[in-house]
């Protein structure tokens, strides 16, 4: 589901090895998380898969490889149901990559 500002934070992982993807998670994602929460892996989606849902993918590289997904439906009474609908399709299309071990924010 998208965050309240409807700007979903993701990272481009093209051409990265599994170890490099874990480094991105450890360097840029984990420090932003609340203490006690964990990363178990990542869900891979292509830009086309987002665009098929009429979402926009903007690689801003702040920090490097950071990419924002926008264009979530807004302004209608059933926006939340539309977000859930899109989230189901994205989850279904994603391929899950589990890391060898849990990364816990301490």
């Amino acid at each position, binding site marked *: 589901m998208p*965050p309240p500002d409807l700007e979903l934070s993701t990272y481009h992982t093209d051409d990265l090895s599994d170890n490099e993807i874990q480094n991105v998670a450890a360097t840029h994602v984990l420090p932003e998380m609340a203490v*006690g*929460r964990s990363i178990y892996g990542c869900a891979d989606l292509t830009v086309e898969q987002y665009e098929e849902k009429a979402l926009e993918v903007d690689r801003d590289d702040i920090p490097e490889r950071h990419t924002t997904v926008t264009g979530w439906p807004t302004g209608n009474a*059933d926006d*939340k*149901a539309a977000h*859930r*609908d899109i*989230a*189901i399709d994205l989850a279904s299309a994603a391929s899950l990559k589990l890391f060898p071990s849990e990364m816990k924010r301490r």
Partner: protein
Amino acid sequence: MIAASQLQLSREGVLTLRDSHGLSPEAFRLWERIKDLRRYWAEGISVGRVAAIGIANLNVARSETSWANWDGYGARPIDTGAYEMAKRFLCTLPTMTPTPAIGVDPDGEVSMDWTFSRTKLLSISVGATGRVSYAARIGVDKVRGTEWIVDAVPTAVLDVLSRVMRA
């Protein structure tokens, strides 16, 4: 003759019995076996169990999301009103309903998911005003909508859940 088809899942997901038209001793014995089966099912899922487990899971979710930015991406804390509405929702689910997976959305609403497979699932959000936003997959059908909790789970949501369970 009594057929297994006389055991039916009602629209609300509750196991019901249709009347028997059999008159023979065999039909009577079979009818008693079917009633035993229903009793066995009902005893396995006591009244209120879905609500009790659901509320316990809801409380765990609340303990993990009760402060701003709990996900590191600007999430709002769980909304107190949404928490209360989610409790009401759980308490009025039919007793034979499977317990949903419970979480909190980044906007502070409570999420509940019944996932049986990629093509057989219902995902809902419960908001502080009683708004229930839902999306479901029932085979090739995609269903979504918005309903409101007045006193109990909205009938339209129960209908979708029942369809998902039977798909």
